[in-house]
């Protein structure tokens, strides 16, 4: 096998997992829900808990099953690529994330895995990292889905608080309480923001076609069969808890319906077959959203069936177009003709998958479409919209199937960049298996019904009382007639599809609203905003930084005092001042004199010495009110600061001796404002009773429990030792950073900043 050990390991892992998950099928098809749990981060209530029910098992089987075929395919498709092991690593990381996402029973764990899939998708889209287009697409996908992820996290935290648990199995049983809760609307909006970005619903659809810059196996696996369905999974999973309201119904039905029609029209516009497939994937995601939103048992049944059906044929078609691209060097519909004779096996796979996609009996795609129609017609509200959009989309899917699988293979062989030849077996086997499965399930719908669709429906609908009975044909009813009309419409459109494509091209060229360039403008705007605010805030002038810091302090304290009406007390100033002794007055005068001298002196040395005087005055206050430790520390720190600043000062320019340039009225205003605010808050604090519980506790326990009589020190080294450890770590980091700065600037002749080291 190509690709070396990375290759066969990457195939064995999903294959083994697939076999393992198959083992759960009998239990789950009996309606069992398997819960497994282990504590992960107990202090944050995050458990690594696993829930295996019909929905998660369906996803797990798709992830591992298609994963096996895709990794097998990749051994040939990318096996000779120098970065192949890296590719395998990303793909495995993705698979872990996706399995975790679908199996997790804990919302927060689900979120972690959700982000793992986002990041691995980013890495895989940007795998050809020397192409600017790949990098842009990767970043776009990351930013769009990452932003949605943040919204989702907020929604999950809200939901967790409302439900009192982060376990899905607990949350989903409280649906009625959640729907009646005042936070229900924000929760739904945040969850849907996550799901819509991930599953590329309009107006977040634009990243998915761009994500096709990834290697073809990635497109088949992540951006069609599995990852983009994570949003679908989330909506399906949350349906018993959040669904069933008008908000949920109309948001999903309108967004899903619009996406499905919009995407299938856009699919016709494309000339690159991979792009056609990308847009039909969007169409499928829209349809799934639409039917999960519709929420009736028939609709959920149809959605679960369509989920599996779509994964089978779409992965097959993506892999098929990879084979064609590999063999001929092009994916353009205009160039590829008559490949059937040169690539018979690929043609068989393409044809079988496309027939399923077109919804022609006896393939499973036909059953999928029948059930979509049946569910749409049976809706009490919005029936016309749902059935209408699905009809339009199905007819256009029929056309897309023809474009993808008919045109390239039939007719006269055309010249291609490389001479066409059959693809290697490991690459053809995957699409063949998937396509044949589509036929098998179509002929024996009972199998897929019992294994996946029925248990899945129970999980999403929230009750196992729904009977699921799939059949290929039973009677001529409205759904069947609609199917026939769909075929007729599809054939007509297919005949005219080339002129239709040109017309659509002109129409879209004239359309002023373009999402992809719009995205660039949003990003440019963001960058400009970031640049603007950085230039404002990061002026590089120390004075301005200090101004901002102190202004924030003044506004913060002053604003709080104002809004909380904290000065609402009578202060008997005369009585307060009466208690002051002569020594208190003396220190006060001492401090005020020092402060005034600092502000008014024309000599730096005097200013620093005067500032030291202020500090010593404060230390004296500490001594008078019996806090010797604090006083000693204050004195020592003041001494060291004066020395440090005096040394640093030798480098600074002289002050303006005349004293006109240095007059800074705004600084004076700010200084007074900070002083007034701090004084006011201190006076206000002293009006109330001071909570002495902590003081009492330390006084009582210091000696018996910690064998120390100096409470300050006992707190520092024993009661609050962890805090002290954090502080001394900060001291070391600050010293090392200052050291690095001083050393780093030494040879460039720049002025050093003074970095002080006080705690």
């Amino acid at each position, binding site marked *: 096998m190509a690709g070396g050990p990375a290759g066969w390991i990457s195939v064995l892992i999903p294959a083994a997992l697939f076999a393992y998950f198959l083992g759960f099928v009998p239990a789950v098809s009996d309606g069992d829900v398997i819960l497994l749990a282990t504590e992960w981060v107990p202090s944050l209530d995050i458990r690594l808990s696993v829930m295996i029910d019909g929905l998660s098992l369906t996803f797990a089987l798709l992830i591992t099953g298609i994963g096996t075929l895709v990794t097998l395919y990749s051994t040939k498709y990318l096996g000779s690529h120098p970065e192949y092991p890296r590719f395998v690593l990303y793909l495995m990381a993705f698979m872990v994330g996706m399995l975790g996402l679908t199996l997790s029973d804990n919302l927060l764990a689900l979120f972690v895995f959700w982000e793992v899939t986002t990041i691995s998708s980013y890495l895989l889209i940007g795998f050809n990292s020397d192409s600017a287009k790949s990098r842009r697409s990767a970043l776009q996908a990351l930013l769009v889905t990452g932003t949605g992820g943040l919204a989702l996290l907020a929604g999950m935290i809200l939901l967790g608080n409302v439900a009192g648990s982060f376990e899905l199995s607990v949350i989903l049983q409280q649906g009625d309480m959640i729907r009646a809760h005042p936070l229900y609307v924000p929760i739904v909006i945040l969850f849907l923001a996550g799901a819509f970005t991930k599953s590329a619903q309009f107006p977040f659809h634009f990243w998915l076609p761009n994500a096709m810059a990834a290697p073809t196996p990635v497109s088949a696996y992540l951006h069609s069969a599995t990852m983009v369905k994570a949003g679908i999974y989330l909506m399906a999973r949350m349906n018993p808890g959040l669904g069933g309201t008008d908000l949920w119904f109309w948001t999903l039905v309108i967004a899903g319906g619009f996406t499905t029609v919009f995407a299938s029209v856009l699919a016709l516009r494309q000339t690159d077959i991979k792009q056609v497939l990308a847009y039909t994937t969007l169409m499928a995601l829209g349809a799934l959203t639409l039917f999960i939103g519709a929420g009736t048992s028939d609709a959920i049944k149809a959605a679960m069936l369509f989920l599996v059906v779509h994964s089978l044929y779409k992965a097959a078609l993506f892999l098929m177009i990879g084979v064609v691209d590999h063999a001929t060097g092009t994916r353009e519909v205009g160039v590829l003709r008559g490949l059937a004779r040169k690539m018979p096996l690929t043609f068989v796979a393409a044809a079988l998958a496309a027939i399923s996609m077109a919804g022609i009996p006896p393939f499973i795609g036909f059953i999928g479409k029948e059930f979509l129609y049946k569910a749409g017609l049976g809706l009490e509200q919005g029936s016309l919209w749902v059935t209408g959009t699905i009809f339009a989309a199905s007819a256009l899917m029929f056309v897309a199937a023809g474009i993808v699988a008919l045109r390239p293979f039939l007719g006269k062989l055309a010249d291609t960049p490389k001479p066409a030849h059959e693809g290697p077996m490991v690459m053809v086997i995957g699409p063949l298996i998937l396509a044949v499965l589509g036929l098998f399930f179509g002929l024996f719908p009972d199998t897929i019904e019992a294994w996946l669709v029925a248990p899945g429906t129970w999980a999403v609908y929230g009750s196992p009382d729904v009977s699921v009975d799939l059949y290929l044909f039973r009677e001529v009813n409205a759904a069947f007639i609609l199917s026939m009309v769909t075929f007729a419409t599809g054939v007509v459109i297919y005949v005219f599809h080339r002129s239709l494509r040109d017309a659509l091209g002109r129409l879209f060229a004239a359309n002023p609203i373009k999402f992809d360039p719009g995205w660039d403008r949003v990003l440019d705007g963001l960058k400009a905003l970031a640049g603007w605010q950085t230039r404002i805030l990061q002026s590089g002038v120390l004075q301005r930084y200090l101004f901002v810091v102190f202004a924030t302090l003044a506004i913060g304290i002053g604003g709080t005092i104002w809004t909380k009406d904290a000065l609402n007390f009578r202060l008997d100033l005369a009585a307060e001042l009466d208690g002051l002794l002569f020594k208190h007055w003396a220190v006060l005068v001492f401090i005020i004199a020092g402060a005034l001298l600092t502000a008014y002196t024309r000599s730096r040395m005097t200013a620093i010495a005067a500032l030291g005087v202020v500090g010593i005055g404060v230390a004296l206050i500490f001594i008078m009110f019996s806090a010797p430790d604090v006083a000693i520390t204050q004195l020592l720190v003041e001494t*060291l600061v004066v020395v440090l600043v005096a040394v640093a000062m030798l480098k600074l320019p002289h002050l303006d001796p005349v004293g006109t340039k240095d007059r800074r009225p705004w600084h004076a205003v700010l200084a007074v404002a900070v002083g007034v605010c701090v004084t006011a808050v201190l006076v206000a604090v002293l009006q109330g009773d001071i909570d002495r519980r902590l003081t009492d506790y330390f006084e009582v326990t210091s000696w018996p429990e910690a064998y120390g009589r*100096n409470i300050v020190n006992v707190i520092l*080294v024993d009661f609050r030792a962890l805090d002290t450890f954090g502080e001394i770590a900060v001291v070391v980091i600050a010293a090392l950073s200052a050291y690095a700065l001083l050393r780093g600037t030494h040879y460039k002749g720049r002025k050093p900043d003074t970095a002080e080291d006080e705690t």
Partner: protein
Amino acid sequence: MMNSIILNAATRLLVALLLMFSVYMLLRGHNLPGGGFIGGLIGSTGFVLYAIAQGAPATRRALRAEPQSLAMVGLGIALFAGVFAVFFDDAFFTGQWLFIGATEDDKGLPISTVLVFDIGVYLVVFGSILTLVLALEEEV
């Protein structure tokens, strides 16, 4: 660096006194004003004085170790003192005490991880301040 004979002569005596005083403050800290923080400040003041009188290179020679290494070692000692409790099935930073020669009435000589932690704090403060002062001195 200042060229002053008086300062030079006084410094030799003062540095020794300050260092001794700093250790005294460190050790008595648990029961009386003092402790690692204050001790470290006093100790570093001694060497700052030395640096002003004799210059940075002489101070580095006298220190025998890089001050930033001293700070890091101090951080390591403090961490060790905290982790030590785990070996006795206590939470991090729970003080462990040993009373040497304790009798009914007298607790004897107490040895504790709390003191070890305070020595770490001393070294961190001492090393960090000297790192800064010496770097500034050499810069100017």
